[in-house]
């Protein structure tokens, strides 16, 4: 099997480095620094130690017994990334990149955030490692996620309101890149998902593969085999790639679940692979939601973490090769799965993760009880309580 990315940062046709000349040297430096540092044993030891002592890894696999019994099909297991420090898989990457920044001698980090989860993770890692941190956040998102804005500030980071474009995640990312272009000499850009120019999709993937690696070991140890199918939600795609990547060469079916928003027949969704076309955004060739003139279209999802008009280049590649199957779950599907998991297992999942849960529940019905499905429960739902309340209250 070919190893991706190649020298040019390509995953098949996707990925690459579509950025202004000003950033080319910084990206090359980052590529080389990452290559060197990630191969140093004491870096890996320090990372391991932080993931264990600080973030609380390994996260367990929980058997969703009551749901599995009720469905009466495949058994459903949950990889509990919600039990990470700060409540989601985002922390794996934030710790990794912050440590990398520190070893590269950078003292300032910047990050983009949509709902604020990556902003919180970046601010947390910055506090832990004594780095200054600016978080770019769209003004629209700041209104919707006022509590996370306050959380980020409590952690000692600065939130920079983004007033350009649609004032959401895509614009926060634009603005973070613009800031980086102006301050590239002393600033480290800590990207939150497997997007952006090479080497970011690789760096973020590498720091997130701890999810899949642990899962394989744990599942093997607990059940003496690998799961038959693995489900994960996909926005930019970092938890999914982290979960899928270690399984790519195994005989395991992999399913990524995008956000169908208000429905694939409407224009309000974030189903980039299901409905999108190839294009370049934020420095990478991927699938995008765009109009016929190549202007980026604003996505919609009930879950802010899936509300991104693009998708990581490696997912685009895995979609084209057919190795991973991509489906889409709607806002209503996600709300239903949140309630099911809360009421039947006592776990309140993030709305993002609930997209994967819904598709896994549906699939379990079609499989025999000898089969097993592992779902990446990428985050906890505490951050979504207000959103869920307003949706359910409005019904």
């Amino acid at each position, binding site marked *: 099997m070919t190893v991706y990315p190649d020298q040019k940062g390509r995953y098949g046709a996707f990925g690459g480095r*579509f950025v*202004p000349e000003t950033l080319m040297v910084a990206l090359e430096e980052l590529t080389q620094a990452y290559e060197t540092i990630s191969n140093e044993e004491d870096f890996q030891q320090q990372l391991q130690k932080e993931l264990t002592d600080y973030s609380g890894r390994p996260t367990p696999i929980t058997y969703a017994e009551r749901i599995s019994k009720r469905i009466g099909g495949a058994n459903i297991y949950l990889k509990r990334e919600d039990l990470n420090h700060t409540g989601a898989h985002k922390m794996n990457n934030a710790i990794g990149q912050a440590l990398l920044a520190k070893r590269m001698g950078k003292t300032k980090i910047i990050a983009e955030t949509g709902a604020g989860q990556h902003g919180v993770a970046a601010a947390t890692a910055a506090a832990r490692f004594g780095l200054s941190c600016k978080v770019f956040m769209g003004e629209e998102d700041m209104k919707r996620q006022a509590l996370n804005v306050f959380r980020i500030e409590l952690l000692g980071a600065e939130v920079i309101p983004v007033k350009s474009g649609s004032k959401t995640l895509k614009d926060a990312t634009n603005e973070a890149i613009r800031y980086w272009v102006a301050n590239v000499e002393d600033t480290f850009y800590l990207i939150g998902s497997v997007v952006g120019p090479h080497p970011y999709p690789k760096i973020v993937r590498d720091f997130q593969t701890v999810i899949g690696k642990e899962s394989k070991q744990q599942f093997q140890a607990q059940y003496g085999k690998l799961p038959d199918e693995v489900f994960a939600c996909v926005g930019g795609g970092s938890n999914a790639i982290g979960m899928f990547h270690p399984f790519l060469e195994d005989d395991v079916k992999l399913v990524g679940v995008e956000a169908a928003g208000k429905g694939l027949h409407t224009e309000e969704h974030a189903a980039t692979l299901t409905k999108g076309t190839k294009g*370049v955004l934020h420095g990478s060739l991927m699938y995008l939601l765009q109009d016929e003139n190549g202007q980026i279209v604003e996505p919609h999802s009930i879950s802010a973490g899936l509300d991104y008009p693009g998708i990581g280049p490696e997912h685009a590649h895995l979609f084209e090769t057919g190795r991973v199957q991509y489906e889409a779950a709607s806002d209503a599907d996600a709300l239903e799965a949140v309630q099911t998991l809360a009421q039947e297992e006592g776990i309140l999942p993030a709305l993002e993760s609930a997209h994967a849960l819904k598709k896994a529940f549906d699939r379990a019905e079609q499989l025999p009880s000898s089969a097993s499905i592992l779902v990446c429960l990428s985050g906890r739902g505490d951050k979504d309580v207000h959103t869920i309340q307003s949706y359910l209250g409005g019904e």
Partner: protein
Amino acid sequence: MKQAVKQPLLNKSSELFIPYVVVGDPSLEVTERVIEMLAESGADAVELGVPYSDPLADGPVIQRAASRALDQGVSLKDVLQVAANVKKRGVDIPLVLFSYYNPVLQFGEEAIVQEAKRAGIDAFLIPDLPLEESEEFTSLAQAQGLSMISLVAPTSHDRIEYITKRAEGFVYLVSSLGVTGERSNYNEEVYQFIERVKQTSTVPVAVGFGISSREQVDQFWQHADGVIIGSAIVRTIEENRQLLSNENTMESGLKNIKAFVESLISS
């Protein structure tokens, strides 16, 4: 791939003045008039900015202009039409199509070079298509006799020669880090940087990013072969957009822009 004998894009190689406009702000018709006026006022080439939803390299002035143009549905096709119209009306200076890569990609790379050629475009400038990614597009453009303008940035260091060796038309030298937009002063290091780029460049070197005053134009004309002025012109158009949007007052709006342009370059 170097072309054997190629006509230079620009017909002089010092004190170049290359303005940039966002096509369709405030309207396609006004843009055409502005381009004609710029040519009459002594522009050596004009960059036609294709409005884009996510202009990564641009500051707030050009972002605002692009979003006004997009609100009116301006597309790459319209930009080509504007080019064709002004050429038909006698504008004979080179036109540079300035577009982010995604609109070009959606139009189709082969289709755009053919259509651009037909419309009278002379060169392309794609700010998010660095040399490493531009090989295919460049050879398509070259096959039609169109130039690809390359950018060189203060962070390019060891890449300078790599870029200048392949440069066509002119080198767009990015004066300072950051996005487009007016700057009140420049780091002295910029002159050394210009010197270094000029040493290896076989085409004129024009400085852009932040230039907005007569003093700055003079300064850069002393050190480099030309200046590229974007945000300052786009902002002047913005300030005059009420006048420009009304048929009865359009002429006085154009006069204001002309006065600003002349204040930048006339001796």
